[in-house]
């Protein structure tokens, strides 16, 4: 039996997806703005940590950043309404991704997820039904579209969940119940269940349940018979994470709404029929791509998914423990996996005179940047290079930069993280393993 990805299917799931995605992005941006995060994350800092190779991406200043977010918000609104959809979704993808690349301090897996979803949305006719584009006759109304236009979002969700589950299959998570053992006692204020938070079995239950959930939920969502029950689990799981870990922000809601994509068009048609002006059409014209465009898009999406498949495994190319070195950690759906904190002291030395200048990180970094940098070697290196530049301008001849850094991982005691004898100013950026990261020591208290 062949898989016919071109088979026309009803477009309803895509319509729900477009509306909920646009609405949630709009809310997220408003929340971000009202929290003052545009200023505190993209205007206040004097130094930014760009993604390696992306250092041409700079913030745009107070006015520029606020305009950028305003444009992004308008784009989100237009996506929701389905007005000037293609332009809006392209703008949203670029503005959102641009902001995410300014500073990896703020990297979050769910931001990465949003970038990907908005990229995928560019290629599908999510505005061909129940949209202002149709209402204003900017685009022809279609009720059907090739099956792949919906399949790609399901595939993406399957990958996110599955890889998040795979990442949990480690010693600490399964057999130490770490970091749950640390995080749960901090939640003893919760009503009813609060008293359970000190119990060890609860930490193990959370760990194992979380791992099983992530590994299997997407597959249960795929099959019609298990889907309703699976979705109840989606609701319960993500609302629970929202209660337990309010710090994760909008992510639970993005996943709750996003998981609706697994439902049939029948379900979506009923859901949409609760909305005003929605005319239920069971069948109608099919959206068709020009043959060459279709091929090109599919080729592009193929490449995308091959990357999606490979990126989470790139850590295998590096030695030592992934959680310690974080080489190959980002873009891999490793979510809420570890409790890691660090503390770094930088020293700038002038070799000719032997003078040492200890760096006050507060002078160059925000508290958040300081915290994130302290546990991520590539950020430590970026910062060291920046310090060398700054101190050279301040008159230090051929500055050398050394770091004394301590990191505590998953409840273990803090240990020296970076070789304090290595002049980081002379160490190059690289995709190879950084030899100056001290090896991880498995030692329990």
């Amino acid at each position, binding site marked *: 039996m062949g898989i016919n990805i071109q088979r026309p299917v009803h477009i309803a799931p895509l319509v729900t997806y477009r509306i909920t995605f646009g609405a949630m992005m709009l809310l997220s941006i408003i929340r971000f703005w009202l929290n003052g995060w545009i200023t505190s994350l993209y205007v206040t800092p004097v130094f930014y940590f760009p993604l390696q190779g992306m250092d041409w991406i700079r913030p745009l200043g107070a006015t520029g950043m606020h305009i950028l977010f305003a444009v992004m918000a308008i784009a989100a609104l237009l996506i929701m309404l389905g007005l000037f959809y293609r332009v809006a979704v392209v703008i949203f993808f670029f503005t959102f991704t641009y902001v995410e690349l300014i500073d990896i301090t703020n990297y979050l897996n769910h931001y990465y997820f949003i970038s990907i979803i908005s990229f995928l949305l560019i290629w599908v006719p999510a505005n061909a039904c129940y949209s202002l584009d149709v209402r204003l006759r900017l685009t022809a109304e279609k009720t059907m579209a090739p099956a792949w236009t919906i399949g790609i979002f399901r595939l993406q969700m399957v990958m996110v969940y599955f890889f998040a589950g795979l990442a949990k299959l480690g010693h600490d998570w399964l057999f130490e119940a770490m970091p749950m053992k640390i995080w749960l006692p901090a*939640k003893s*204020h919760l009503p009813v269940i609060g008293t359970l938070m000190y119990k060890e079995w609860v930490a193990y239950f959370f760990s194992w349940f979380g791992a099983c959930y992530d590994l299997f939920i997407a597959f249960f969502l795929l099959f019609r018979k298990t889907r309703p029950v699976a979705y109840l689990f989606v*609701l319960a799981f993500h609302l629970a994470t929202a209660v337990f870990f309010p710090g994760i922000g909008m992510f639970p809601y993005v996943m709750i709404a996003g998981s609706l994509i697994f439902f049939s068009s*029948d379900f979506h048609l009923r859901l949409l029929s609760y909305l005003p002006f929605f005319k239920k059409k069971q069948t109608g014209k099919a959206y068709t791509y020009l043959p060459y465009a279709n091929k090109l898009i599919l080729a592009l999406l193929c490449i995308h998914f091959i990357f999606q498949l490979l990126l989470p495994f790139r850590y295998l190319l590096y030695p030592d423990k992934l959680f310690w070195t974080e080489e190959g950690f980002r873009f891999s759906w490793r979510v809420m996996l570890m409790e890691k904190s660090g*503390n770094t002291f930088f020293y700038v030395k002038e070799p000719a005179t032997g003078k040492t*200048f200890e760096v006050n990180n507060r002078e160059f970094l925000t508290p958040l940047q300081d915290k994130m940098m302290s546990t991520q070697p590539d950020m430590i290196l970026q910062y060291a290079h920046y310090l060398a530049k700054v101190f050279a301008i301040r008159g230090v001849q051929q500055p050398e930069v050394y770091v004394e850094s301590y990191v505590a991982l998953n409840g273990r005691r803090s240990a020296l993280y970076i070789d304090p004898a290595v002049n980081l100013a002379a160490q190059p950026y690289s995709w190879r393993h950084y030899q100056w990261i001290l090896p991880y020591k498995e030692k329990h208290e």
Partner: protein
Amino acid sequence: MQHAPGKPTGSVLLNVYKPDNFYRMRKNTLFVMLATGAISIIFYACSKGGGSSDPQPETGFDKTAMLTNYADNLVIPGYTTLQTQLQTLDAAVTTFLTTPTDANQQQAQSAFKNAYLQFERVSVHQYGPAETYLLGNFVNTFPADTVKINTNIQSGTYNFASTGTVAQQGLPALDYLLFGPGAVQQLSSAGRKKYVQDVLAQVKSLVDKTLADWKSTYRSQFIGNTRSDVGSPIGYLVNQFAYEMDQLKGPRIGWPFGKQSGGIVFADKCEAYYSGFSAALAVENLTNLRNTYTGGDNKGIDDYLISLKKDQLNTDVLKQFDVTLTKLKAIPDPMSAAFTGNADLVDAAYKEVQLLLTLLKTDVASATGVRITYQDSDGD
């Protein structure tokens, strides 16, 4: 390729029903889903709202008892004593200003030292009302900006409410005005006298307001919130441990000692430079930090760590507190002279401060699940 109606075609990823299969799904499924969704959301909303109003008894560790101990035995008594000390200081300063003699200056200085030492005992508690009034910033930003202070006295116009003037007021300004070089002679000027009185009045008013807020509203908020997230009492406490250690390492010792300046000493940048009891203040600060860590005789963060089975960490932290205190006490006052005269002693203490800082900022914060940050953002 033809498919039987009702059967999904192709892979499950693409499992979208053909139009002729609409309404095959059981009709009530959607309603069941919506109902459960609504129930979940209601449960969620309730659980969120109920958290603050109805604190649950704790079985593993009684955080409320710990916080009550902090509020009733450390913070409120600490601010009450500070209030009293400032009244004593006020009286001594009034005498000194009326009759600026060396004897009266000594009297005032002894009262000043008592008040300053007492401030070190509440220095760690810069959250809640103290944070609202920026007490720590207004009362103890050092070094004092002596140039600006003199300009202010000459012009007679200054606004102590503005955050831009933190270095022109507070205890460091009093240190300079009352005990700086030639203070006794200079205090014959009426403008200078008035400035001293205004600075002292501002310090007293901020402490009064902070204490009043603790007593009236903040105490119950403090003991009723057993969360550990950003902005919670436990979050604040652990963050303040790290912050105080940062202050000890930086402004109190490291910066004037020349750690940031390639060894060039800036002796006059240290705390209470003119009175010359910087080392005593540093010792008091750290002694109090240890006392806050242990919660005095009652429940403190140390007991919380033990309940989290972090006994070894707790032992190490206490040991490091003691080692650091011993080294710190070895530095003779005035510390400004020790930076050059006893550099090895300062250096020895500095190293221990750094080790203690790492323990508190990394190990203790990590063990208690508290984020060290003064910034709010999402995580994942």
